[in-house]
C-alpha cells in the first residue's frame, strides 16, 4: 500500500503523542519536589469524555481543569476526528500492536457501528441520573489505568529481576556496568517502589481483550465501541475539513476496501466515522484524494441510527441510575471504604472520578488501590486507601495534584494534614500488649500528627501470675486523621491490630457521638 506524506506525518504525530504521554506518565511520581513540575494529567484534561462526565456530575463544571477538552471539541468541529487518528494513545497502540499481531477483516456492519452510539447515550442518561460509568469505557482511562495498574508494574518487576540476577551472579564487566546504570534507571525510568495492585490482572485482561479485537477488525474498538469516538464524531459532522472526492469513484473500490474506519462507502464520506488517518491520500491509484477546508454542506450521509435503538439505550441508562442508587449505602455497609484526602463526598466522588488511575500511579505510599466491588457495583477502578498495603504520607499532596476532574480536590499541605480520611481503631484481641502482655507501640512511634493521635497509658497487668507494667496504645479521636501508617507498620502477621475505618471522615456530615474521656 502506497503511503503519502500525510500518512507519515500522522504516524509521526501518533508516535510523538504516545511517547509524550508515556513520558508524562513516568513523571507522575515524586522526584524530590512537593509540587509536580509537569501537567501529568494532561491526557485527561484533553479528554472531552472526562469533561462530559464532569458536566453531568453535580456541582459546578471544572473550567480551570478541563478547558483543554473544550478546545479539543472546538478543533474537532473544524477538523473532524483528528484526535482519534493523530493523538489518541489507545488508537496509536491499536495501530501499532495490530500490525504486530495481525489483523482480521470483516464485512462492514451498520448494526455493530451503532453500538458505540447506543453505549454513549446509555452512559450519558445514567450519568444524568447520577451514575457515572463513562470512565469505564473511556479509551484514555482504559489506556492509562492499564499502564498504571498492570503494564508499568510488570515492567518494573521485570527490569528489577534482570538487575537482581546481574547483582547476584556477579559477571565481570556486565555486573559493574549494570550496577552503575541501576541508580539512574531507577531514578528516571522506574517507580521507586515496586507498584503493587490487587486488580492488575483483571485490568490487563480488559486491555488484552481490546487489543485482540484487532484480530477481528482493524480499530474494532474505535469503530464499534468507543464512546469518546462517538462524542468527537458527533462534533465533526459538519467539520470544515473535507475530503474530495466525496464518494467512491466509478470502477474503483479501493477506498471501500482499504479505509481503516470504513468511512468512505457508497453514499459518501462519513466525517463522523473518518479517523483522518489520511491513508487514502496515498493508496488512491489516481492520486485523486485531497483534504481541504471548505464551507460545511448540509448534504451527505447521516448517522443511520434506529429510533428504537436510541430509545432503548436511553431507557437502559435512565433505569440503571435509580436501580444503582437504591442500593444500601456503602458508607454504612463497608466501613473500610477510605477515599484519598480531598475526595469529594461519596456520591459526587463517584460522579466525577473517571477511573483513570493517575492517583494510584502517583501515590507515594502505594496506598491507593482500585476498587472492585468494595465501593458498590459502579465503584469499579475508583481509588481506595488500603492501609495494610500502604499509608497516606503525612506531608504529601500528590493525588489531588494529578486528579484531572477534581474528584480529589487539590489541597495545600496544611489543610491536607487536617483532612480526616478515617479513624484508627484497635483490635484488642490481637494488639500485643492487650492480647499477649508484651510491649510494642510501633503504631505510636509512627503516628505522624505533631501531637500524636496514638498515645499510651501505662498499666499494671498480671501475665502468667507476674505483675508487669505495660504501655497500652489508644487513639485520640480528635487528632487522628486516618492516614493508616499505624495499620501499615503494625508488626503482626496478616491483619493489623489497628485498622482505619471511615468513621468521622471530613467529607461527610459527622454523626455526633459523645467524645468521652479519651478525647
Amino acid at each position, binding site marked *: 500500500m502506497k503511503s503519502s506524506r500525510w500518512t507519515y506525518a500522522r504516524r509521526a504525530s501518533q508516535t510523538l503523542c504516545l511517547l509524550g504521554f508515556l513520558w508524562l506518565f513516568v513523571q507522575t511520581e*515524586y*522526584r*524530590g519536589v512537593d509540587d509536580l513540575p509537569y501537567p501529568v494529567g494532561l491526557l485527561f484534561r484533553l479528554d472531552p469524555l472526562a469533561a462530559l462526565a464532569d458536566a453531568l456530575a453535580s456541582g459546578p463544571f471544572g473550567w480551570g481543569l478541563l478547558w483543554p477538552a473544550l478546545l479539543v471539541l472546538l478543533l474537532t468541529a473544524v477538523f473532524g476526528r483528528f484526535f482519534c487518528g493523530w493523538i489518541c494513545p489507545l488508537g496509536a497502540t491499536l495501530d501499532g500492536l495490530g500490525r504486530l499481531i495481525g489483523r482480521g477483516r470483516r464485512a462492514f456492519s451498520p448494526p455493530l457501528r451503532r453500538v458505540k452510539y447506543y453505549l454513549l447515550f446509555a452512559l450519558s442518561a445514567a450519568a444524568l441520573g447520577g451514575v457515572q460509568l463513562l470512565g469505564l469505557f473511556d479509551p484514555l482511562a482504559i489506556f492509562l489505568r492499564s499502564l498504571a495498574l498492570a503494564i508499568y508494574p510488570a515492567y518494573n518487576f521485570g527490569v528489577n529481576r534482570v538487575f*537482581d540476577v546481574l*547483582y*547476584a551472579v556477579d559477571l565481570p564487566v556486565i555486573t559493574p556496568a549494570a550496577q552503575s546504570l541501576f*541508580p539512574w534507571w531507577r531514578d528516571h525510568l522506574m517507580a*521507586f517502589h515496586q507498584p503493587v495492585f490487587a486488580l492488575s490482572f483483571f485490568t490487563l485482561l480488559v486491555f488484552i481483550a481490546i487489543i485482540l479485537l484487532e484480530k477481528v477488525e482493524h480499530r474494532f474498538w474505535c469503530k464499534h465501541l468507543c464512546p469518546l469516538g462517538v462524542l468527537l464524531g458527533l462534533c465533526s459532522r459538519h467539520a470544515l475539513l473535507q475530503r474530495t472526492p466525496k464518494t467512491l469513484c466509478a470502477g474503483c473500490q479501493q477506498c471501500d476496501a482499504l479505509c481503516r474506519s470504513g468511512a468512505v462507502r457508497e453514499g459518501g464520506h462519513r466525517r463522523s466515522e473518518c479517523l483522518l488517518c489520511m491513508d487514502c491520500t496515498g493508496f488512491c491509484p489516481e492520486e485523486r484524494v485531497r483534504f481541504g477546508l471548505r464551507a460545511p454542506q448540509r448534504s451527505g450521509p447521516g448517522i443511520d441510527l434506529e429510533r428504537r435503538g436510541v430509545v432503548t439505550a436511553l431507557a437502559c441508562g435512565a433505569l440503571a441510575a435509580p436501580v444503582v442508587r437504591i442500593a444500601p449505602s456503602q458508607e454504612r455497609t463497608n466501613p473500610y471504604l477510605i477515599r484519598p484526602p480531598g475526595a469529594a463526598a461519596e456520591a459526587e466522588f463517584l460522579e466525577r472520578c473517571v477511573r483513570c488511575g493517575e492517583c494510584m500511579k502517583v501515590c*507515594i*505510599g502505594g496506598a491507593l488501590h482500585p476498587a472492585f466491588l468494595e465501593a458498590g457495583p459502579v465503584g469499579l477502578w475508583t481509588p481506595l486507601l488500603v492501609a495494610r498495603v500502604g499509608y497516606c*504520607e*503525612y*506531608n*504529601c499532596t500528590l493525588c489531588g495534584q494529578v486528579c484531572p476532574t477534581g474528584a480529589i480536590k487539590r489541597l495545600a499541605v496544611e489543610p491536607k494534614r487536617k483532612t480526616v480520611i478515617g479513624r484508627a481503631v484497635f483490635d484488642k484481641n490481637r494488639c*500485643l500488649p492487650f492480647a499477649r502482655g*508484651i*510491649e*510494642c*507501640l*510501633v503504631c*505510636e*512511634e*509512627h503516628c*505522624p*500528627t*505533631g*501531637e*500524636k493521635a496514638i498515645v*499510651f497509658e501505662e498499666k499494671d497487668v498480671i501475665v502468667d501470675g507476674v505483675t508487669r507494667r505495660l*504501655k497500652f496504645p489508644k487513639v485520640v479521636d480528635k487528632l487522628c486523621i486516618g492516614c493508616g501508617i499505624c495499620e501499615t*507498620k*503494625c*508488626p503482626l502477621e496478616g491483619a493489623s491490630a489497628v485498622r482505619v475505618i471511615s468513621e468521622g471522615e471530613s467529607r461527610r456530615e459527622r454523626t455526633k457521638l459523645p467524645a468521652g474521656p479519651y478525647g
Partner: protein
Amino acid sequence: MTSFDRRTFVKAALAAAAVGTVPIVDLLPRPAQAAEGPPLAVRRGQDIPKLVRDTVGALGGMSRFVKPGQSVVVKPNIGWDRTVELAANTHPEVVRTLVELCLEAGAKKVRLFDRTCNDPRRCYTQSGIAAALETLKSARAELEHIDPRAFREVTIKGGKAFPSWEFYQPALEADVFINVPIAKHHSISRLTLAMKNLMGVIGGSRGKLHTDIAEALADINSVLPSDLTVIDATRILVANGPQGGRPEDVRRLDTLIASPDIVAADAYAATLFDLKPEDVPTIVAGARRGLGIMDLKRVRMV
C-alpha cells in the same frame, strides 16, 4: 578504634553465603579502655561546623578514626519526613561537616544511608541532608537509597532477643562506621540515641524488635560496633518522638557529644533529658553486654 575487622567479617559472610549458611562472628568484648576509661568529648556552640570540628578534635581528630584510603559509612538518622527545625533527623550541617572531616582524613569513599520510616525520597530531601551533601561537590561522598537486595542474614552469637537478623551489607563492609544520631524522646525505648540509630542498617520487620527492644538493640550493636559515635544534641526532641512535628517539643541545646564508646555517648546524652543512664534500658543492656561503659564517672572527659 575497634579490633573488629570488617574485611574479615565480609570474607566470612561471602564464604558463608557461598555454602548457603549464615556467618558466625566471634565477638570479643571491646578492647580494654578500662584502665583510664573511654574518652568522651562534649562541646557547646552555635557555629555547627566549628562545633563538629572542635568535638572530634578533642578526641584526637578524625585521623584517629579514618586512615587514608579507607571506606567509611556515616550513618545519620534520616528516618522521618520532617524539616530541620522539627528535630526528627540529624542536623544536615553536622552530617556535612563530619563527611568533610572524613574526606580530609583521606577516606576513599564516604557512604551515607538510612532505612527510613517515611518514604525515603521525602526523608532525604526534607531532612536537608541531601542538599547539604550536594554542596560538598565530592564524588567520594554519596548519599544512597537503601538497596533492598543488599541485606544479609547474620547470626548473632550470644543474641539475647534474636539468634540472627538481616544486616545491610554496605554497613558491614565499611572499614569505619560512624554513628551520627540525633537525641530524641521515644516512647518504648524512652530515648533514641546511638544504639537505636542502628535500626537504620538492619532489614526485616523492625517492628518485631519492639517487644524486647533493649536486648534487641544490644544484639544488633554487638554485630555492628560503631567506631565513632557523634550524637547531635544541637537541638533535641523531648516529646512526641521519635518523629515529632511540633516546634514546642524541640529544645535547643547547641551540644555535640562524641566518643569511640557508644554506650558512654548514649549515657551522657541521657543526662541532657534529665535522666540517669540507668533509666534507659537500652544503655543498661549495652553496658551489661560489654558494648561500652555507662558509668560516667569511669569515662575520661576530654
